[in-house]
């Protein structure tokens, strides 16, 4: 519904959510939110091998969540914010739709009750 307006393909979303479904990959993204890092730096907090980290980075790269550049012998990873922003906007669609609808309902009914109350007292005055 609301979220249909967000321009992000189903395939891209699948890739983004697939990538985010793993705890290690989320931790990698959180680390990259603080700045670029090499494979070794990314590996340090985890008890996993370098090939395993490289595999996670590949998944993140395919999802468009990171990009990688070479600096001498090191490969640096950078966070790409846009797909995350789009995925967050897409996810929030349902909740936002109903949050806003109910908020409007509250306002509408508040206005109706106020009108009815002042209408009722007008009537009392006119009939007395």
């Amino acid at each position: 519904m609301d979220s249909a307006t967000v321009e992000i393909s189903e395939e891209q979303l699948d890739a983004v959510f697939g990538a985010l479904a793993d705890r290690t990959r989320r931790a990698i993204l959180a680390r990259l939110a603080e700045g670029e890092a090499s494979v070794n730096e990314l590996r340090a907090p985890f008890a996993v091998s370098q090939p395993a980290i490289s595999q996670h980075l590949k998944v993140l790269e395919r999802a468009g969540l990171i990009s990688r550049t070479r600096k001498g012998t090191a490969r640096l990873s950078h966070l790409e914010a846009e797909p995350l922003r789009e995925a967050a906007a897409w996810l929030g669609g349902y909740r936002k739709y109903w949050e806003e609808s109910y908020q409007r309902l509250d306002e509408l009914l508040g206005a109706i009750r106020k009108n009815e109350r002042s209408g009722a007292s007008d009537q009392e005055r006119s009939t007395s």
Partner: protein
Amino acid sequence: MTELKVTAEPGSHEVSTEREIDAPRDLVFRAYKEPELLAQWLGPRRYAMEIDTYEFRDGGRWRYVHSDDQGNSFAFHGVFHGDPSPDGMVQTFEFEGYPGHVSLDTAVLEDRGDKTLIRTVTVFQSIEDRDGMVQSGMADGMREAYERLEELTAKLIANS
């Protein structure tokens, strides 16, 4: 302001919501029953709401269109099942942009004196439909992914 509670259990076809409204039940029911009122609250403000058909009775059809100022429009239609009452408004729901994927929506208005609790349950044809169409992001793992996403995006926005 009361908060909207959204529940989507992992592996289920359902999404349920709860929201308390600061008005008595009769009035809340009117806001569902009368299309002139419904058009004033259903959907985000940035959409214009046009109700084509609204037959609020057993077997009655409904159809409405949300449109934004960029010329995008999103149409929905369905049928009421059973006579709608504050104890239960049951309808089918289909987004015309995703035809053939129909959900069954039930809304119940619970009397809380001067307030009303609106409970809704939406049942989808499949888990994929639920996750794909509702895009609530609350299925197993996605809930956490969503929380992480919020943290990450907040961080990113603060840093940019």
